[in-house]
């Protein structure tokens, strides 16, 4: 093959690779920003809920399809007032972390979240109706990226009393 012909082939390859790289760049940045903004690629699904004395216990499945480990470090539940999820501490440094639950990369994990319901009106409402409108905002920590982000979940769920 002559040099001129080879150059032409290389230019065509360059054109195709260039267009593909622009498209991949757009998709990658959109995904990266979306990850940082909420959930870091986590897929969160509700399993069940029950009431243990005045503790509301919520069971969720988390699927982490990404390649980075994520930690669930805390959060809050909004009913008629805001309830903090206990035993949670925001890590300032990777060595001081105390995760509520680790969510390893490429794994499915079930997590039980225990929340003390201190407001008697909320507790009575759950006991009488057997369901609750949950508005959960969970705090995530991504150790490799040294960053915190949130994942939210809103739904009306049945509660076994």
């Amino acid at each position, binding site marked *: 093959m002559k*040099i*001129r012909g080879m*150059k032409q082939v*290389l*230019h065509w390859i*360059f*054109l195709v*690779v*260039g*267009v593909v*790289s*622009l498209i*991949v*760049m757009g998709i*990658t*940045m959109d*995904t*990266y*920003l979306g*990850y*940082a*903004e909420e959930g*870091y*690629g986590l897929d969160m699904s509700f399993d069940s809920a029950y009431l243990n004395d005045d503790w509301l216990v919520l069971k969720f499945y988390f699927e982490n*399809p*990404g*390649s*980075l480990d994520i930690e669930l470090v805390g959060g809050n539940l909004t009913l008629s007032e805001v309830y903090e999820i206990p035993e949670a501490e925001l890590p*300032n*440094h*990777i060595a001081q972390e105390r995760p509520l639950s680790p969510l390893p990369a490429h794994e499915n994990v079930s997590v039980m979240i225990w929340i003390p319901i201190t407001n008697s009106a909320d507790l009575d409402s759950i006991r009488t109706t057997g369901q609750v409108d949950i508005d959960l905002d969970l705090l995530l920590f*991504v150790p*490799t*990226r*040294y*960053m*915190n*982000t949130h994942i939210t979940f809103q739904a009306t769920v049945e509660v076994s009393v």
Partner: protein
Amino acid sequence: MIVKTIFSLSIISITFVLYGLHEMPWTIWGSATGMFLLLLAPFFSGMIMGYSFENPKWALAYAIIIGFTAIGLNFLLFMLPQIMGVGDYHPGFMADVWWYGYVLPFFITISCVPAGAMVAVSTNVYD
């Protein structure tokens, strides 16, 4: 030439970005193919840029400028969520940005992009 510049910037910086962002499902980080692409893509871009020049001096200067602009773009893209404030980042994040956004791309850029440009510009004498 503008199209070549845009595509070169895009090819070099997306390679660095994909190597740095190993949370992406389509990351090239941690594989032999990834290392190969990391070296090949900047070389290939430099080569295509080199074909446009008769004078090796200008080819070298242009390739280096494009290479360093791509590093800047990569650095910016890596930091974009922090700049936009969409995530709450701790100071340790910047160590990652400097490594994957500057140090590693710097060595690859100064090695591969001018090498590609020089290989290409030297073949121009056969036209």
